[in-house]
């Protein structure tokens, strides 16, 4: 869990960031596309509905216009009827007075003819509730003889009666109103009225009225559907409602419609948008009736579709995102896989494995990178190999340089001993010392073989000790105990001599009663341990520690360190010298070596000569001051000085400084 979170938080891998950026990009793109697509979809739907509604409104106006024109032509049939004109003229002549009996009969005949004419017309259409003619003096004739006039109707105050008086030629269409002309009838009607003109003078002699059932207009408008919640309504020029699907609610003040001037009539589909009500209003005006048909579109209805459209787009977006995520994972994996492989290869190199080789699958940038990497690794490998061999060479030459160092003081001292002995005629002893010296040098320069058997080394140290015993007489004693089984084991030559030398100069020489040096060897598993022990003055812990430090000036430790380094160079770090604090007085040095069985001769031995001058400062410092006090005898020969470079003659080797 924790791991997962950490991995999720750590978004620095190429794959993760690619995935993130990919998804982000796709999300934004898809959202923008969807938003604009959606906008166009909705706009399209709206425009479509608007156009459709506009067409509907024009249709309705057309229907109403033709309906009213129809009524108009019917009205001219009434108005131009000879009987009716005659009747009106007669009424006007009488001026409301009752005519004579004969006149009355003629008038009644005229009235019944006119009424018959009107009722015939009225019966042709079910939507006409009443046709009436009214003379200038208020004589009313109704189409239906069975109905009587409402005495309180106040028709002479109504627009439908007053307007034709001045309009003369055209019909007047009223808004929907209650017609109270007939007694006991209160119908909502639309009144169409027209002036009755004298056929000769053209004067207004009366008014004709046709009442149209409100249903007739309702029938035209009612079946119009704009979506499910849209509707249309009709208003006249004065904002009077002619038709509305909820006219009673408008009349009773529960509902209100927008004043029509808010939305301009326009053939181009001009419209007004009411955001709080989610409504779009469209208006079309009729020139014949002066009415405006208004269509109301409920935009929520578009929303019904909108929700579906949104849902559709949402699902599409989700699917696109899922697929784009998959694609992103695929692409990023495809790109990062070779990078990761290359990275793993590099890590192996980092851990030291130079034997690797990057797999190259393509010639893409990554492939070329792999190629370059491979080339680099090859070069590094070559370089490393060269370095290793050079190092090896250096090591060998160093060993050569080290093993060649036999303290020159010793040589001078020995020579002086020989001189002294021969001067005093001790011939036998001279021979013994000289032959021991010869033996010692033979070993030391012997054919460059760096490894010798323990046997040879023991012989060598015996020669050395023989010489030293000449010098120190009884003061020095030694015993060597090497088991036969170990005598064939191999070891670097001249490793015992510097240690023994060290024991003599620092352990025994300062001791007045002299001392004894014991050399013995034992085998512990794969280890050959040679112990050099003396019972001399021993060493302080500081002195002992100084043994292993380079550059010490006051003691002869140079040989000691030399041996230590040589063993390490040849066999490795785990081998070398170890100073052991002895319980009794004196010191003990253990030499740790691998137990190597002797196969005679070592290939490395060649070129004891041609080695370059040793630049390694393994034995820097004041060379050869092997106890300045002691070797002082030799100091007379100015050929060397402690601080001077000494070529020890045996081998062309330069000890520096």
């Amino acid at each position, binding site marked *: 869990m924790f791991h997962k979170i950490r991995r999720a938080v750590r978004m620095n891998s190429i794959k993760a960031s690619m995935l993130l950026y990919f998804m982000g990009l796709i999300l934004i793109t898809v959202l923008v596309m969807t938003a604009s697509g959606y906008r166009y979809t909705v706009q399209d739907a709206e425009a479509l509905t608007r156009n459709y509604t506009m067409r509907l409104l024009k249709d309705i106006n057309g229907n109403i216009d033709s309906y009213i024109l129809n009524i108009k032509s019917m009205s001219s049939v009434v108005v131009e009827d000879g009987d009716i004109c005659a009747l009106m003229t007669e009424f006007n002549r009488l001026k409301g007075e009752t005519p004579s009996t004969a006149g009355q009969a003629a008038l009644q005949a005229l009235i019944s003819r006119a009424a018959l004419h009107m009722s015939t017309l009225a019966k042709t259409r079910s939507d006409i509730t009443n046709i009436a003619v009214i003379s200038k003096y208020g004589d009313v004739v109704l189409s239906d003889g069975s109905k009587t006039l*409402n005495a309180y109707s106040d028709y002479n105050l109504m627009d439908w009666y007053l307007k034709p008086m001045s309009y003369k030629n055209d019909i007047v269409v009223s808004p929907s109103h209650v017609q109270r002309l007939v007694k006991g009838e209160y119908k909502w009607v639309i009144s169409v009225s027209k002036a009755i003109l004298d056929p000769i003078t053209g004067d207004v002699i009366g008014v004709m009225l046709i009442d149209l059932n409100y249903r007739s207009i309702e029938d035209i408008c009612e079946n119009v559907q704009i979506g499910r919640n849209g509707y249309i309504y009709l208003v006249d020029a004065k904002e009077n409602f002619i038709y509305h699907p909820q006219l009673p*609610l408008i009349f*009773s003040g529960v509902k209100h419609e927008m004043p029509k001037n808010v939305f301009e009539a326009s053939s181009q589909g001009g419209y007004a948008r009411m955001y709080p009500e989610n409504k779009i209003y469209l208006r079309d005006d009729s020139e014949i009736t002066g009415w405006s048909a208004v269509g109301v579109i409920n935009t929520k209805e578009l929303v019904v579709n909108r929700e579906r459209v949104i849902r*559709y787009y949402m699902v*599409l977006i989700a699917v696109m995102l899922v*697929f784009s995520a998959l*694609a992103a994972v695929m692409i990023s994996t495809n790109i990062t896989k070779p990078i990761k492989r290359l990275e793993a290869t590099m890590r192996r190199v980092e851990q030291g494995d130079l034997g690797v080789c990057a797999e190259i699958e393509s010639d893409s940038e990554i492939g070329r990178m792999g190629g370059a990497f491979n080339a680099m690794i090859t070069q590094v490998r070559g370089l490393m190999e060269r370095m290793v061999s050079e190092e090896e060479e250096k090591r060998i030459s160093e060993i050569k340089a080290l093993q060649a160092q036999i303290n020159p003081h010793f040589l001078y001292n020995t020579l002086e001993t020989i001189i002294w002995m021969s001067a005093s005629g001790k011939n036998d002893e001279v021979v013994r010392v000289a032959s021991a010296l010869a033996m010692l040098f033979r070993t030391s320069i012997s054919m460059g073989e760096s490894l010798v058997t323990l046997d040879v080394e023991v012989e060598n140290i015996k020669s050395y000790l023989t010489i030293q015993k000449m010098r120190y007489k009884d003061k020095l004693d030694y015993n060597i105990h090497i088991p036969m089984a170990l005598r064939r084991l191999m070891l670097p030559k001249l490793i015992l001599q510097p240690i023994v030398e060290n024991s003599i100069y620092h352990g025994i020489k300062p001791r007045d009663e002299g001392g004894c040096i014991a050399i013995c060897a034992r085998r512990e598993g794969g280890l050959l341990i040679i112990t050099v022990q003396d019972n001399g003055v021993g060493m302080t812990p500081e002195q002992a520690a100084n043994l292993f430090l380079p550059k010490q000036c006051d003691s002869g430790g140079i040989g000691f360190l030399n041996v230590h380094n040589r063993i390490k160079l040849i066999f490795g770090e785990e081998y070398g010298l170890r100073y052991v604090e002895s319980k009794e007085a004196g010191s003990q040095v253990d030499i740790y070596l691998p137990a190597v069985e002797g196969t005679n001769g070592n290939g490395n031995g060649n070129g004891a000569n041609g080695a370059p001058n040793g630049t390694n400062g393994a034995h820097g410092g004041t060379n050869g001051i092997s106890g300045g006090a002691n070797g002082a005898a030799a100091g007379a020969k100015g050929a060397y000085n402690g601080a001077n470079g000494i070529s020890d003659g045996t081998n062309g080797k330069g000890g520096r400084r």
Partner: protein
Amino acid sequence: MNNFITRYVGLMLLFAIVAAVITYIPWLDPSKPEMMEKETQEKQYRVQVVLKARANPPDFWRIVEQGLKMGGDEFNVNYTVRGPRTENDIDTQIAMVRAAIKEKPDVLILAAGDFERLVPVCEEAVGAGIRLIILDSDVNYDKKLCFVGTDNYELGRKLGGLVEDIMEPGGLFGVIGHVESSFTAMERKRGLMDALDGTEGRMAGLRFCGGSVDRSRRQTIEMIKENPGITCMVGLNESSALGICFALDELGLAGDIRVVACDSSETQIQYIESGIIQSAVIQNPFNMGYLSMKAAVQIMNGEKVEPYINTGSVVISRDTMRRPENQKLLFPFIDENQ
């Protein structure tokens, strides 16, 4: 690399297929809106309406029904209207309310014929989890959610004001009411009395006709015969007022005794036109029907509804009746085809 291209192309093809399939899932198809209609049909509420009467006259209840129908159609409500033949048939109305409760409607709209006697059935209805809306005539029960109607006390005060305008000094007036125990009659009477405070001596009589025009006519004749000094008669509702007019016609006193009335039927309008009814206070029955239905739907939709919806009343006289705004109130839009 080739492997990758194959897989990538495969993925894209799969995407194209899925996208294409999505377009044809009916649930998502943007070109199919019928489902929404089904949903709205499922949401239809059920409303039971019990009126005081369904007879004609009074026209009043027919117009209420018109309003109910307008609301019911607009809000897509499944509703049933019941009502006794006469306004004073309380027992029938109680039985009808019980029958309405049995239908387990969402809302019960009730015009209570009696202020007290309908309380138990109202309790039954509310106990059955039915939301109660009172229309026009209140009931003495406070767990109704909404009252839709005229402020009848205010109406009574207006009547009183009209009486005061008409009456000559020293004249007497008589009052005919509809159902004594009905809330509307109680409130109107109270308003009338308050408006004519200190004139008790002038009231010749107060009778209740039980909603019957004929009884009102007879009561008027009796009252006038007993009190010849009456110069003004008040009808507390349509049927009482009509009875008064018929009585005056019968007695030949039309025009001599002024009438102050409530509500408007076509016959009553003729009496207003002819001046027999001096003035009338008109309610808005259409709005009562429509607004109570609307309130029912709003309650069901969890919207907040005013506890008292006043549909108002207007004074009309012969001179003001021609005004368009009054015409709209006086001549409700009754659809003859029904």
